[in-house]
């Protein structure tokens, strides 16, 4: 208990960092992922190919390597950015590939009649997708989409390996003050369990409320 209450400010600041990183990356990855999914089902071959190559590459690269590049290589190649932004970019680029695959899976669950009806009304591809198919697809993939975001929340700890602002680095701060590393890490683990539980509850809720009756 001493380890936690003696460093409560530190603990909360770091979990604040985790949550900020999670929220920013979640929003960016959802947007990019949906755009990629739209590209992968579009009538333009170049867009489909770009989407496929992107997803294949990013899904088969370890996240550690992606963040390794952004933490150590990006500044060398381009320009200086604070590590928080680099971590957001890395995590979003990585997670977007998984969001894309989930949304694409959702698109294939929407019954064909829906898109056919939309086309019969004279809708083009963009209208069919954004007004008819995607709203239904996203609802049907809410549970797996939440799983992807829960994975993102846990993946934010990988960023802690490269920097210090995040919850995963709490043990170092405690260690410097002579506290027990083991206890500090157990508190971090508990903190994550506490963060994941509301997301799981939200997942079940959304599943019930948003499930489409077909």
């Amino acid at each position, binding site marked *: 208990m001493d380890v936690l209450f003696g460093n409560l400010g530190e603990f909360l600041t770091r979990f604040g960092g985790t949550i900020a990183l999670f929220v920013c990356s979640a929003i960016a990855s959802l947007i990019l992922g949906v755009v990629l999914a739209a*590209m992968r*089902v*579009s*009538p*333009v*071959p*170049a*867009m489909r190919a*770009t989407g496929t190559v992107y997803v294949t*590459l990013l*899904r*088969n*690269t*370890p*996240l*550690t*390597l992606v963040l*390794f*590049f952004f933490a*150590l*290589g990006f500044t*060398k*190649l381009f320009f200086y950015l604070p590590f928080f932004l680099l971590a957001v970019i890395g995590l979003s680029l*990585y*997670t977007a590939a*998984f969001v894309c*695959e989930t949304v*694409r899976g959702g*698109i*294939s669950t*929407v019954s*064909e009649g829906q*898109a*056919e009806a939309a*086309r019969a009304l004279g809708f*083009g*591809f963009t209208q*069919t997708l954004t007004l008819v*198919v995607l709203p239904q697809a996203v609802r049907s993939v809410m549970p*797996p989409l939440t*799983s992807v975001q*829960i*994975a*993102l929340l*846990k*993946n934010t*700890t*990988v960023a*802690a*390996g490269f920097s210090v602002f995040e919850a*995963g680095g709490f*043990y170092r701060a405690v260690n410097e003050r002579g506290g*027990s*590393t*083991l206890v500090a*890490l*157990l508190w971090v*683990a508990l903190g994550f*369990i506490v963060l*994941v539980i509301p997301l799981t509850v939200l997942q079940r809720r959304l599943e019930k409320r948003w499930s489409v009756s077909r």
Partner: protein
Amino acid sequence: MSAPTAVLFDVPGPRARARNTVAGAVTLAVVLALLGVIVWRLAATGQLDARVWEWVLYENVQLAILDGLVKTLQAFATGAVLALALGALLALGRLSDHRPLRSACSGFVELFRAVPLVVLMFLFYYGLPSAGVTVSTFVAVVLGLMLYNGAVLAEVFRAGVLAVPRGQSEAAYALGMRKSGVMRFVLLPQAVRSMLPSIVSQLVVLLKDTALGFLITYPELLFQAQFLGSNASLGSPLIPVALVVAAIYITLCLLLSALANWLERRSRRNPAVIAIAIERPDDA
């Protein structure tokens, strides 16, 4: 994916064809521009100079990278075997008729699915010494991989067993088999066959997660990359080494993914395999 895709748009007429060509050209231009910027920055910062690529020719460096690869594969193989065993045990526990065992296994699975793998590895490597137990980086990596992926695989196995039609176990009980026999001879073989693609995809995740060992200084590929990349006598070739290592990881994962896809296609052709659409557990 071809069927649902084709449903989303009409066969393009002349105007749509022109529009699609323009959109295609724009996409291509954007992609080429992005690649161009990357290559330009690589060249401008001297990452394409012969000096920082010389290391490729040195035998010691090749051996160091090979050693990293072997260490990665060792952690992967050990972690995979242990995770599969743990997953099977936990799945059996969760399917048990005894309530205490069932809830204990459920709790275990939920716990290790919620805790980030990095935190687990940190716990074993940096945390345990405070309790007087010291483990090597290899043990910390493998334990973390085993516990996390075991918990995920337990869910996969359980879903597979539950997806076997009830008539199968009823018929086996009617033949006088015991619970263990029903599980071993009837349910598990069918479950494993139908879950094989999902199991292999989870192994891809496990392979990618071995790279987390880098964070606790387990000398796997990425660690070697950083070590070589900061070597001033080689010209600090961090980015070139990282590119090579990335290519190695992607190749390994693609090979495993290809195996998963092949297994899936094969099982779809085979009518004896139960067709179940369970989420592939590839959520990052």
